[in-house]
């Protein structure tokens, strides 16, 4: 069973629906018992970093995530579920989980495209992810695939070794990160059509080894 972490983080049902469509049994839960019983964990997120960290800690899910990570359970973070893995987020001046070194920053106000036009914030819509190295969770994704993003803050990883995919929106940022049994993406695979479903399907069959 795959546990979809329920920490009051907005629309979790779209992840559940995508897994159900792919035929993987899953459960939206905040129960420590059920999460410990899960063979893998999806850590989704829609909303603000401050509220997310507060809810995680109130539910005791922050320490549980650390525990399951140490236990080698494959974990997939999505959107805010990626952002709170880092040390710190500028959103609500939030101390985060500190699992990956780096911080999450607001897109600069003066962000421009190559023609000098002001870019919109949030970064909303389809953008390319350039995968910079092989990883089992991103296998069989056709080159040039685009993914659905919606966010105003972006991760700035200080350990470049954990970045496996990059995206350009005025500035380049790590839109897919991985370390050991952890992977996380800034985009929404559950809303990114067939390439997104491919990633979810890969994750659901991944043994947690990064090779």
């Amino acid at each position: 069973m795959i546990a979809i972490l329920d920490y009051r983080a907005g629309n979790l049902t779209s992840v559940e629906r995508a897994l159900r469509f792919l035929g993987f049994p899953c459960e939206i839960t905040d129960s420590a018992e059920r999460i410990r019983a899960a063979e893998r964990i999806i850590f989704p997120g829609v909303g603000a970093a401050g509220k997310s960290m507060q809810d995680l800690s109130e539910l005791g899910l922050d320490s549980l995530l650390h525990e399951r990570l140490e236990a080698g359970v494959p974990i997939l973070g999505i959107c805010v579920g990626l952002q709170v893995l880092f040390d710190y987020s500028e959103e609500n001046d939030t101390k985060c989980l500190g699992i990956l070194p780096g911080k999450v920053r607001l897109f600069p106000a003066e962000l421009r495209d190559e023609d000098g036009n002001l870019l919109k914030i949030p970064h909303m819509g389809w953008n390319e992810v350039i995968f910079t190295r092989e990883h089992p969770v991103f296998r069989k994704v056709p080159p040039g695939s685009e993914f659905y993003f919606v966010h105003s803050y972006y991760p700035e990883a200080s350990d470049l070794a954990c970045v496996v995919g990059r995206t350009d929106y005025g500035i380049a940022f790590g839109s897919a990160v991985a370390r050991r049994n952890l992977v996380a993406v800034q985009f929404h695979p559950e809303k990114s059509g067939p390439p997104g479903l491919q990633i979810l399907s890969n994750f659901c069959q991944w043994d947690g080894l990064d090779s």
Partner: protein
Amino acid sequence: MLSKRIIPCLDVRDGRTTKGIKFRNNIDIGDPVDMGRYYYEEGADEIVFYDITASSDRRPIMLEVVRRVAETIFIPFSVGGGIRTLEDMRDVLLAGAEKVSVNSAAVLNPGIIQHGAKAFGSQCIVLGMDVKRVPPSAKIPSGYEMVINGGRSPMGIDALWWAQEAERLGAGEICLNSIDADGTQNGYELSLTHLISTKVRIPVIASGGAGGPHHLLDVLSEGRADAALIASMVHYGTYTIREIKEFLQGQGVRVRQTW
């Protein structure tokens, strides 16, 4: 860099799709779930379902459509039409829509934008605007006036002012429909789209008037829209989304081409 989005819009009445020409003479062309799935496979970047069901007791039919769509298409889709309360928003989002669009109700009660954004996040809240060109005046300096009730009621509110106010209240996106261009197939209202899109920081979807791929080129480049809504030109099979995207890519507009 970000791709421009191509978004087919399906008008739905009592659970069936229609396409209104100037909001009248709707004709029945099919099942919204089948059409949604078809456009998903064709490479639509997003889909809009617009509920034009007249009576509120038939609304549950629409929620059932939303649930069935959410089980079969895995791109964002939004639902508009008849959204008046936070409860309406919650129903549609829980049924599986990514976004809800508020139009007339937001003009009459702007608080719904603020409350919706606070409850569900700005990224869920699309402001639908129906706009009509008028002679510029002290009251309507931009020369574009807000109208509601499907184009029937002019509100004496400046469209540019309203777009900026809605952004301030927490709208995450604007779907900008020109009443003058809607249904004509003569092209989008470029000056209106350019005006609004360059004066707000949130994405703007252009709507109304698309008849051919060159109209999308115009509104996505000259009009500076972030996305373009299309209806008749694909519903009746005149063009496919793939053809439109190939044309745009050839003209230097970045669109999503792999799926």
